[in-house]
């Protein structure tokens, strides 16, 4: 009865596209990780764990790229959540008027192409002529006018800062929606009981906002581990290898024709994200089930 009303073939186009362009490449990619597949030769030979041994060998740089990816992910999670939460609180409690205007402007960077944002910041962060250093020199902070994207010690932090600038609005919007679901009476009751602003934040806002903060965190984890555009267009992994991350290395392996090695790196990322994805889905679905129950 319901099979004729809700026919399975409605699902087929979506499933077919998904399997052909998503699943088959990922699964067969794991198989090709154990080969010497490259653009130089038509022959593909089984080489066992050789690619993985190379990736995890301390004498190669791959562990650094993985480490850089984790540093990028960790720092952007903390910065985006802290600033995003600050702005969400500001728009939720601090200001009463023009909230929507502020929201539209603060969210603006999130919809710009990452590539374009990176190009603009290459100019802003230029050590000699960039806007940032010009402003710093103008107000007398010459010591802070650093070589943002050129100095290997701070290049990663600069990339993180630009990415944070771009991502804050997205995080703020989600947290703001979370804040708006907290009933006002809770705060009024707490105020009558003499709770100050900090304890109201600590004991009402933070616990009730936890689900939204969790969602924001997993979104940032998924984004951070896969990050490509912003690094590629800002520094392309440089100076040296200071900002090289997993996805930029994958593109370099692709350009150099090292397909076997590159697909091994890809497969490692796949396994990491498969595990992360499992938790994400549980989280998203738990929220949804709770909503259905209530």
């Amino acid at each position, binding site marked *: 009865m*319901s*099979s004729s*009303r*809700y*026919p399975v073939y*409605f*699902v087929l*186009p*979506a*499933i077919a*596209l998904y399997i*052909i*362009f*998503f699943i088959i*490449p*990922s699964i*067969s990619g794991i198989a*090709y990780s154990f080969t010497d597949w490259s653009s130089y030769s038509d022959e593909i030979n089984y080489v066992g764990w050789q690619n993985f041994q190379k990736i995890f060998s301390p004498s190669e740089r791959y562990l650094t790229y993985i480490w850089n990816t984790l540093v990028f992910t960790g720092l952007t999670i903390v910065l985006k959540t802290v600033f995003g939460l600050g*702005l969400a609180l*500001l*728009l939720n409690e*601090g*200001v*009463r008027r*023009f909230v929507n205007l*502020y929201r539209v402007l*603060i969210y*603006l*960077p999130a*919809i*710009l*192409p990452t590539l*374009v944002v990176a*190009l*603009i910041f290459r*100019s802003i962060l230029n050590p000699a*002529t*960039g*806007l940032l250093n010009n402003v710093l020199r103008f107000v007398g902070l010459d010591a802070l006018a650093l070589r943002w994207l050129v100095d290997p010690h701070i290049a990663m932090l600069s990339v993180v800062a630009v990415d944070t*600038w771009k991502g804050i609005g997205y995080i703020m*919007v989600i947290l703001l*929606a*979370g804040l708006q*679901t907290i009933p006002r009476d809770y705060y009024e009751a707490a105020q009558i009981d003499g709770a100050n602003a900090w304890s109201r934040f600590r004991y009402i806002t933070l616990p009730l906002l936890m*689900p*939204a903060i969790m*969602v924001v965190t997993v979104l940032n984890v*998924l984004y951070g*581990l896969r990050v*490509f*555009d912003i690094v590629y267009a800002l520094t392309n992994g440089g100076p040296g290898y200071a900002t090289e991350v997993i*996805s930029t290395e994958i*593109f370099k392996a*692709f350009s150099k024709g090292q397909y076997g090695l590159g*697909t091994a790196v*890809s497969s490692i990322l*796949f396994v990491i994200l498969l595990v992360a*994805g499992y938790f994400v*889905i549980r989280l998203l679905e738990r929220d*949804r089930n709770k909503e259905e129950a209530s």
Partner: protein
Amino acid sequence: MQGGRLQAAGAHILAIAASLIMFVPVYLIGVNALKSRAQASSMGLEFPTELNWENFLVAIEKGKLASGFINSVLYSSLSTIIGTFIAAMAAFVLSRRRTRMNRFLYLFLIMGIALPINFFTLTTIMQVTHLINTRTGMVVLYSAMQVPFAVFLIYGFVESIPRELDEAAIIDGCGPFQLFFRIILPLLTPVLVTVGILNFLGTWNDFLFPLYYLSSSANWPMTLSVYNFFGQYQQSWNLVSADILLTVVPVIVVYLAGQRFILSGLTSGSVKG
């Protein structure tokens, strides 16, 4: 309430400062696009002393922006229509018929939200299907990539449409196609608009697939054209700014027109009210 007013003023100053920081780069692009090459060399905040409208003409001509624009419109709109549509069909059936199998298929599909793409083996697929370096290939790839998130958002929305409508339609003699197209699809409009705008912007802003799979510049979307233009004209920030401005204007227009739907879509998928 002197203190309260002072606090509100402080909050507004903070909010204005934050908004300005977010707006500065777009502003920079706007003013520098009209400057002369010499004046734009430092990408300063000041207004242009003379208006060089010809920057736009140079950017359009040398940056191949006309064909880039057409390609971007083609990729974004076609893949959004196809991706959103097939996702809606799938989400409708998966949400209505809760069998174990369908539950599994649903979770399997939305797993794609998290998974990375293997570009190496995907190349082989693109070659086998003769889609590599073609416009069709881009549309098909983008459609496929949109499916997981679109299914996730639409699935939740289908639940809010009463099943009694289905019953009534079937009693009135509707088949599954009529039920879906005439009854369900119109009711899904709000979520379809949200999904559509997000997918459109996501595709417009992407340059990963073109970077990997489009070697001939005739098929490039605007993002890749801009990147290439930047490589050639790094010294002429006035031209680069003009080029960038023309690329982001469509994005900003879609954003301002659809911001209500964008913001609602982001939150409905993640935060529960």
